[in-house]
């Protein structure tokens, strides 16, 4: 306080905003205790953000040597800042492309840390009960080819629902997003029309059919919540937290499946069994298992292959190891899919290869 008023006295000529910053800088975070030895900063995917925040809050409370901060911002932002080397670690639901990995001289380690399901949440007031969407139907909804809720193809599989005569308003992500990647990767693998003539696969796309856009999972969820007749793709736990109804989707085997953590975990286990790539970039665009939920995706932490300070590498290793063990139980309680053992084992293995240059 004394320093602050001193600043005010000497800086009358300085503009108000600069003054505020100066004062803000002087008054340190009141929650912080004695200075920590090391501060690790990460940024990226918004989908695992609630989980990571919870992890790091607990981890920071457990010990005093390291303080971990996660800033969110979206997978696109996370990868960008990771490549610019302005963070200690990144996070992405789309991992990193080969071209992106090549830009990082220090090397890249992709560590699967959690997993989730992309669901189609909708807002149809007055429609109670399970909304079933076959594979070709939800592709055509997002292509803008099916644009009314009382379309005969939707009524055909939902004979019990009283579907309103409303237009379908699709809601999508406007920022670069791993959720978009997982969803469009799935659409591309089930529909040649989407892959070849449609928008294709990517973290950010030009959506057809007058889609509304929102920033982040929470932005899309919010737009769905305030728009009647809307449907959009978001991560499972955002939909369940806001109480948005979730469509039941048809999987490769032809069964209609509701998303739940157990089926998601089995899907990932089977996929990792069938072949886990060396860089751990495992995508499951269209699982074969009869009761697998069709859109399941891993979420990765992005670490550098080497860190100039060995203690930074060691601190990161211990944080991530903690997340891969204790963290997985927390993941289940927050609505994420705990990783199956075979993926955890590989992740731990890769984690040990991080070191000094």
């Amino acid at each position: 306080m004394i320093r602050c008023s001193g600043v005010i006295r000497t800086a009358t000529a300085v503009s108000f905003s600069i003054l505020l910053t100066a004062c803000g800088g002087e008054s340190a975070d009141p929650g912080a205790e004695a200075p920590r030895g090391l501060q690790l900063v990460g940024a990226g995917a918004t989908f695992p953000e609630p989980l990571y925040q919870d992890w790091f809050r607990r981890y920071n409370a457990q010990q005093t040597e390291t303080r971990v901060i996660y800033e969110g911002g979206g997978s696109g932002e996370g990868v960008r800042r990771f490549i610019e080397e302005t963070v200690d670690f990144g996070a992405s639901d789309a991992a990193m492309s080969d071209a992106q990995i090549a830009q990082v001289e220090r090397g890249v380690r992709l560590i699967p840390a959690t997993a989730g399901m992309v669901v189609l949440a909708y807002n149809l007031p007055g429609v109670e009960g399970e909304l079933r969407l076959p594979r070709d139907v939800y592709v055509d909804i997002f292509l803008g080819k099916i644009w009314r809720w009382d379309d005969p193809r939707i009524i055909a599989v939902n004979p019990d629902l009283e579907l309103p005569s409303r237009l379908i308003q699709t809601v999508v992500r406007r920022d670069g997003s791993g959720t978009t990647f997982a969803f469009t990767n799935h659409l591309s693998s089930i529909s040649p029309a989407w892959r070849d003539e449609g928008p294709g696969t990517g973290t950010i796309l030009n959506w057809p059919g007058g889609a509304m856009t929102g920033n982040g999972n929470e932005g899309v969820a919010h737009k769905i919540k305030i728009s009647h007749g809307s449907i959009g793709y978001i991560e499972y736990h955002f939909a369940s937290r806001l109480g948005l109804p979730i469509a039941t989707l048809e999987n490769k085997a032809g069964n209609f499946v509701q998303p739940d953590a157990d089926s998601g975990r089995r899907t990932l286990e089977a996929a990792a069994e069938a072949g886990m790539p060396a860089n751990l970039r495992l995508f499951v665009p269209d699982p074969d298992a009869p009761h697998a939920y069709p859109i399941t995706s891993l979420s990765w932490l992005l670490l550098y292959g080497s860190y100039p300070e060995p203690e930074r590498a060691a601190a990161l290793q211990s944080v991530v190891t903690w997340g891969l063990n204790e963290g997985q139980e927390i993941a289940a309680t927050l609505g994420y899919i705990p990783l199956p053992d075979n993926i955890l084992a590989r992740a731990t293995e890769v984690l040990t290869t991080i070191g000094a240059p």
Partner: protein
Amino acid sequence: MALNPFEHAGAASTISGPPSEGDYLGDRLFRAVARACAGLIIALLLFILWEIGGLALPAMAQHGLGFVSGSTWNPGTQEFGVLPEIWGTLYSSLLALLLGGVFGVTIAIFLSQDFIEARLAVVFRTIVELLAAIPSVVYGLWGIFVVIPLLRPVAGWLHAQLSFIPLFATDLSGPGMAPAALVLAIMILPTVAAITVDAFRRIPYKVKEAAYGMGTTRWEAILKVMLPTASSGILAALVLGFGRALGETMALAMLIGNSNQINLSLFAPANTLASLLASSFPEAGQIEVQALMYAAVVLLLITLLVNIAGLGIQQYTVRKFEGKV
């Protein structure tokens, strides 16, 4: 002790005398400060233009005029076009100007043409001006929780009955052009009303007396004499209101739906330049930032053109209705 009214007479020579050194100094100082302030405003504007223009230059060189006519915004493939945003900006602002302009001028007539007691008019005017003090984000929230639910059944009915008219070709799911324009109209209302009231007040009372003296009714006096006489002031109010509507960001970003499309329908979601800037900046990489700066330049140009056009119309009406050259 009686006051001596001639006490200061002795000093009167200094009052009527030549200006002192201090007077000269004060005068020069004031002139310098006034000039500096005026210069600073222009310098600030030029500096902003320079900065934005400098950042936008690479995007301008790369995309050229295709930026204005393109309708894709995809940082992934680095395709940038703002035609839907230009359309949305002009469409929402024009709708808002139509609604807010009519309401604003009507309110101004109500407040300034002896419809209510003068003291009551002051209270009304203060209330209207208070609308300007409400933060944009509150308007946005109000739009989401009040305007949209109110509009939805109306829009549904219009769409069901009159869907052959392009204006009603879609129904309103939530955010869209109509709620955005409606809230925008309320936001520009205080600007339009306050300046229009002043324009009416500036008309000498003699004009109205003369009109009545010639046997006009009250409405004839207002519509045929007062309105044309105040027209240049009213136009200034409309131009200012339009400028405010063009640049409004937060409430629109919350209400317009951020959809990259050109649709005549009043109930379809759309996007505006300002809300594109607001929603894309936090995420944007270097190339996209350049494109966004280009979009900012486009917005500046539109505002400039609108102001110039407004000035032109204003001068025309001054010549036509007020008889000045």
